[in-house]
């Protein structure tokens, strides 16, 4: 009886370990583009961190705002100083969940269309979003990508009248993450 109990428990633990395989990256790529009548602004950040829990479909990512690189130094300064206030709000964080985790077979190669929903926190404001994404599995390697739009005003970021023609009200965000297995 004792043995059965132990075996049962062990099975439970190992089972859990098997299904709760987690993947991570520290070099996720996040870019955004603002297309306004007078100016096109692009910035890229290649230091996003993310963890994906394959079993539950939960995913999180965090982006350091100051790590966004612009082609013009002054844009970068204004982005941090005037718009994102990155000294006060250093990170953008997303905590969410793949809405249809059953659509993804992590053990089989392929490209799976998913929907991800969760809370996006930018500039200290949290907003629930749902965005489409793709999970690609190739020889056990997992990568995820998504393209979606965010409305600047939703995150309490004000665009003054003088630069209304230079900064778009919505920006296109694109995310590319190449996951590695998280060994715990």
């Amino acid at each position, binding site marked *: *009886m*004792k043995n059965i*109990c*132990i075996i*049962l*428990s062990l099975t*439970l*633990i190992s089972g*859990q370990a098997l299904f*709760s395989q*987690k993947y*991570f990256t*520290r070099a996720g790529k996040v870019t955004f583009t603002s297309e306004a009548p007078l100016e096109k602004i692009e910035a890229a950040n290649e230091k996003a*961190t*993310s*963890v*994906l*829990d394959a079993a*539950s479909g*939960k*995913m*999180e*990512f*965090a982006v350091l705002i*100051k790590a966004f*690189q*612009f*082609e*013009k*130094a*002054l844009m*970068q*300064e*204004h982005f*941090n*100083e*005037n718009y994102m206030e990155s*000294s*006060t709000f250093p990170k953008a*964080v997303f*905590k969410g969940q793949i809405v249809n985790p059953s659509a993804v077979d992590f053990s089989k190669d392929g490209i799976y269309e998913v929907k991800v929903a969760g809370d996006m926190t930018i500039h200290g404001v949290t907003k629930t979003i749902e965005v489409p994404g793709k999970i690609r599995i190739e020889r056990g390697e997992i990568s995820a990508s998504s393209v979606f739009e965010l409305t600047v005003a939703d995150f309490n970021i004000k665009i*003054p009248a*003088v*630069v209304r023609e*230079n900064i778009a009200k919505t920006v296109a965000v694109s995310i590319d993450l190449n996951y590695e297995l*998280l060994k*715990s």
Partner: protein
Amino acid sequence: MYRSALLLWLLCAVSALNAQDDLLSLLGDEEETTEYATAAFKTNRVINLHSLENTAAGVLDFKISHRFGMLNRGAYELFGLDAATIRIGGDYGITDRLMIGIGRSSFEKTYDGFVKFKLLRQSVGKRKMPVTAAIFASTAIQTLRWQNPDRENYFRSRLYYTFQLILGRKFSENISLQLSPTLVHRNLVEVASEANDVLALGGAGRIKLSKRIALNLEYIYVLPDQLAPGFGNSLSLGFDIETGGHVFQLHLTNSTSMIEKGFVTQNSGKWGDGGIHFGFNVSRVFTLKRQK
């Protein structure tokens, strides 16, 4: 026995619960990076003085600086608006720490060139540095016609040199302060009571009033017995207004000249007598070399 199994099962359940909690914390602490303080001042000048900031690498900052006449000229000259002194110049960032600039002032028809290098940069994180320090050196060439062309005149009599240490700190998002010990060397002075080497201490600060507007104040104290009679210390008060690529600096100052050699040693205006100029600097940046 049954209990121990239950305990194990509970343990599993608890660990499973924990796993749901915060996925990112599984990654542990992030690698610490060095974070440099940025934008202690909105542009590389406070008002007349050079600020803690440099023009970024690959960026040309085109500057038009303008001082109207003195307010005490009265209504006949529309309180100084009829007269104008101007400096047109360009500053360029060779690297984020090294900047050069040239300019031409209408005041005494003077050309100037300078080099400014950041020795230390205020930072937190991996590398901690409480202050920013920069060195600044400039040469000015006055090109007025010789007052007395009949005597032998030397080109070197037209030359002026300035050396300055700029030391300061961005104390908070809104408050930055700096000290600027300065030495101005004049090859030729008019009267014997004037020193060839003038030592001065500048102090400047800014308070941000909003994201795009800042209030600046600067004062330059010249150590006694170095200037010709009638010349005094420089005091300036102004606002920075930033709109995307431009910074407009509007100010009141008793200095007529906009370069060190002038605003440290040649201030005839006195605030108490209305000997002050309304003036502005307009800075427009052009990115000549894009960042990667």
